[in-house]
């Protein structure tokens, strides 16, 4: 310690106080107002925002506004006007950022509408393609059905032609379908239901003609009026069954064939004469049309009430 010198502690205290004072002065001179800090931050956000490029003019104006605030602060320090200018700069940066966002949102909306339009067009194309495929499938189905119908018609025609040409039997078309009539005397002995040897040849021809034909078949036995009615009913049934058995054991599917005895109930000629009785003793083989295949009309029903009366010779 010297006489004129300051005591060591006082000197230290004096130096410290001076440093603090200088620090305070320096601090006050360089202290940035919060408005300017906010403006800088807001401007940075506006520049880095995704929509900045869409609001380039506004970002530029915000930059100029911030520069004015910075210049004012540099020249005048932290004055109320500095804070006002910084405040304005911050708001302008906020506005610039918001305008950029606005454009992005408008673009998103437009993009969604464009997507929808594109999606609708794709849907329309897909619908047209689907419709086209459906039409094509329908046309193919119709073509297939037509082919099948033609094949069926051809098969039926072949059957009809074959049956029409057979000797010893007649083939006629009536409401029940194609009716092939075989004389009872050719097939059976009097009062019997066993097929005669000569009958088998006739039935073989029938089997050959019917094998490819898809139609359902009803075999109907008839007798003349000689003898008891109930006995004739049983006999006609047995004869129909005998014919059915022959057909089904020679290649005609059983589910296509039904047998029915009608006895003497449906004569086609006068039983008083020998010729008429011979005509009444018969077996009918009925081929039902395609429309009847699911509901085979039975002899004696309303559908065949006039069977044998309105028959037309097959051309």
């Amino acid at each position: 310690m010297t006489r004129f010198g300051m005591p060591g502690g006082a000197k230290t205290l004096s130096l410290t106080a001076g440093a603090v004072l200088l620090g305070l002065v320096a601090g006050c001179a360089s202290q940035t107002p919060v408005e300017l800090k906010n403006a800088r931050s807001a401007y940075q956000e506006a520049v880095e925002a995704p929509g900045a490029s869409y609001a380039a003019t506004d970002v530029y104006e915000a930059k100029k506004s911030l520069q004015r605030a910075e210049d004012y602060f540099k020249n005048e320090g932290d004055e109320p006007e500095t804070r006002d200018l910084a405040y304005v700069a911050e708001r302008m940066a906020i506005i610039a950022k918001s305008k950029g966002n606005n454009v992005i949102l408008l673009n998103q909306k437009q993009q969604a509408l464009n997507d929808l339009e594109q999606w609708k067009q794709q849907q329309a194309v897909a619908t047209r393609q689907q419709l086209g495929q459906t039409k094509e499938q329908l046309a193919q189905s119709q073509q297939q059905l037509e082919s099948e119908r033609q094949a069926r018609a051809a098969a039926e025609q072949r059957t009809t032609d074959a049956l029409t040409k057979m000797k010893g039997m007649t083939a006629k078309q009536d409401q029940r379908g194609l009716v092939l009539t075989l004389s009872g005397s050719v097939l059976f002995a009097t009062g019997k239901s066993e097929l005669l040897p000569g009958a088998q040849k006739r039935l073989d021809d029938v089997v050959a003609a019917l094998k490819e034909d898809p139609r359902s078949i009803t075999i109907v036995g008839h007798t003349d009026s000689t003898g008891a009615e109930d006995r004739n009913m049983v006999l006609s049934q047995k004869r129909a069954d005998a014919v059915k058995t022959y057909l089904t054991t020679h290649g005609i599917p059983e589910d296509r064939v039904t047998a029915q005895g009608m006895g003497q109930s449906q004569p086609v000629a006068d039983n008083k004469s020998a010729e008429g009785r011979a005509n009444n003793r018969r077996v009918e083989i009925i081929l039902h049309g395609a429309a009847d295949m699911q509901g085979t009309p039975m002899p004696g029903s309303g559908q065949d009430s006039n069977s044998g009366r309105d028959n037309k010779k097959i051309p």
Partner: protein
Amino acid sequence: MKIIGWIGAASIALVACASSPVPADRLAKSTAAVRSAQETGADRVPNAALHLKVANEELDLAKRLIKDGDNRRAEYVLLRAQVDADAALQLAREDQARVDAQHTMDEVQKTKNSQREGGS
């Protein structure tokens, strides 16, 4: 931007004139900006409503300053009011654009979904 131009002009004028005139033009523009923000529905959008509230308060303060004869200070406060009103207006528009975009995207998705469900 007009505000920038005005800032420059106002700074010069304020420095040059010791006694500033009543900022009638600035008062009219700020008042119009506030009204425009209100009409846009800024008061219904939280972020925008805050700026609108501040703008109204600044407008009231500026009127008091003018009444007290502090036209120079009033001019700056009116400038604050105007940019706050502009910010409120823009934020309200952005909000509306966001609602519109979301609504459109939802409708588009709904349309697609309903078409898919109907077509399955």
